[in-house]
């Protein structure tokens, strides 16, 4: 009896000890395997072959590949890899296995077309992906919106307007597609159009990464507008006083209310030649104005989670 209890205690101890050790070892295996796992994807890059190999369970396999695509992008983005060669094959496989997986198209629209280091920088692949999505889901207005957005990003406002117009004809389409089509045709390059586009993306997406990306774009647009406006005020000051201000504090009387700050609360800086600069541009990855001379953006853009 005592011997049996001894065996029980020893076996139970060994069981817990070994399970804990296996978890630790598995973490080590994962660290060694990170690169190898991604390589696996390339070995079977044919969606047709994968579809046959899935033995009819292509829906589940599509979910697996969709998760891999999101993880691949997330991990590379976090590490500041800058290049996303496998994002297109992963999304292509995902959507070929399940052409009705709508979130994959929205993800592809945003991160395939965006320029590195914020995306793969292959807008032609993004268009191919979303057009494929439209062929398979012609009644989903989100896809036309995604397509229009890619063309908008390419500054092809005519094609963007056309995509939004096509989308507006779909049953139950969101009414703003008609407005976007008109806005695109007349004021494609305006800041206000850009704000409208990113706000719509922010409000309609359910994907956290896309939402955070849209929020970062909106902050950058606000900063761009601030810099333009502040430089205009500085120019007004120069014309009225005959000299450039030494600081924003000097402009407090009649021109500004205190030291202006960017959308994240960091104060803007005024240069001796009257230019307005951001004090912390790393936190506003998509900003185009107010960048210090010779500014090099970080390899891994700081995109904060959206609320």
């Amino acid at each position, binding site marked *: 009896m005592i*011997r*049996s209890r001894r*065996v*029980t205690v020893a*076996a*139970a101890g*060994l*069981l817990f000890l*070994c*399970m804990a*050790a*296996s*978890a630790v*070892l*598995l973490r*080590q*295996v*994962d660290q*060694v*395997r990170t690169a*190898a*796992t991604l*390589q*696996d994807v390339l*070995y*079977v890059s044919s969606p047709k072959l994968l579809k046959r190999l899935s033995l009819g369970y292509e829906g589940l396999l599509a979910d*697996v590949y969709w*998760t*891999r695509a*999101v*993880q691949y992008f997330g991990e590379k983005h976090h590490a500041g890899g800058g290049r996303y060669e496998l994002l297109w094959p992963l999304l292509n496989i995902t959507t070929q296995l399940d052409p009705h997986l709508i979130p994959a198209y929205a993800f592809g629209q945003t991160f395939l077309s965006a320029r590195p280091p914020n995306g793969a920088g292959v807008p032609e692949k993004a268009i191919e992906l979303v057009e494929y999505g439209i062929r398979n889901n012609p009644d989903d207005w989100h896809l036309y919106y995604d397509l229009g957005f890619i063309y908008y990003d390419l500054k092809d406002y005519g094609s963007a307007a056309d995509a939004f117009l096509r989308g507006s004809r779909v049953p139950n389409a969101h009414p703003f597609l008609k407005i976007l089509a008109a806005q695109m045709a007349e004021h494609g390059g305006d800041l206000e159009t850009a704000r409208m586009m990113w706000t719509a993306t922010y409000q309609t997406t359910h994907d956290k990464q896309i939402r955070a990306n849209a929020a970062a774009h909106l902050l950058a647009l606000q900063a761009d507008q601030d810099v333009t406006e502040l430089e205009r005020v500085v120019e007004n000051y120069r014309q009225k006083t005959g000299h450039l201000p030494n600081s924003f504090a000097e402009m407090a009387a009649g021109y500004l209310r205190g030291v202006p700050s960017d959308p994240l609360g960091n104060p803007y800086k005024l240069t001796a030649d009257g230019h307005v600069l951001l004090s912390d541009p790393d936190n506003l990855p998509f900003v185009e104005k107010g960048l210090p001379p010779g500014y090099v953006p970080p390899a891994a853009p700081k995109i904060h989670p959206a609320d």
Partner: protein
Amino acid sequence: MNSRILHIATNTFREAVRDRVLYNLVAFALLLSGAAVLVGQISIDIERLVVINLGLTAVSLFGIVIAIFIGIGLVSKEIDKRTLYTVLSRPVKRWEFIAGKFFGLAGTLVVNTFLMAIGVFAALAYVSQHFQSSDASVLVALYFIVLQFVVITALALFFSSFSSPLLSAVFTFSLVVIGSFAEDLRGFAKMTHGITRLLATGAAYLVPNFSALNVISQVAHGEAVASPLVVYNTAYALVYATAVLSGAVLIFEHRSLK
């Protein structure tokens, strides 16, 4: 290993041979020689790729089937035939019986894999006329396959220690499938939050991880396997199999055999 465990292991091996388990080698030889001749004739520059992929996949699948179908009967068969009572009436402890059965079946699979490995290399020599330095990676892939068998044998034995052969087969096969997607499972867990994340991560670490033990595609493309991976995979498979066997001993120790 004490003499009692060795004795049970030897008997398990002999029984497997008597059950004509090694007959699968004939099917394997036919499959591989046929494929070698076929791809040799077609010659579309993927002869080596086909032979390595097909050979290693066949070794893996044949072995998994043997591990499951022999493993699930290791305990129940002894109970059905009442030979277990004879064994346990002698000075053999229950944990020794479990350990002996495990080593016996694992040994059978090692011998089986060794013979199949000779077949794979023979087919490789036939299609490419010579060996390359990268072929050493095929040996690593075969070694990883043996590690898979060690874990699967332990799992089959674990389920066999308390369940019927049919249910044991279902449970073991399910874990083999889930284990092949273990990395994705951990990926899913990473994307969850709060208590769900805790539970999902726990489950993901609880199931066996077979995806890291499958390097067939990698070696077929002539890529080397990192030596740290060999070390960690070996340690992982042995530790995991020990944990599962400990579970089997725990259950079997308290099982009423009346």
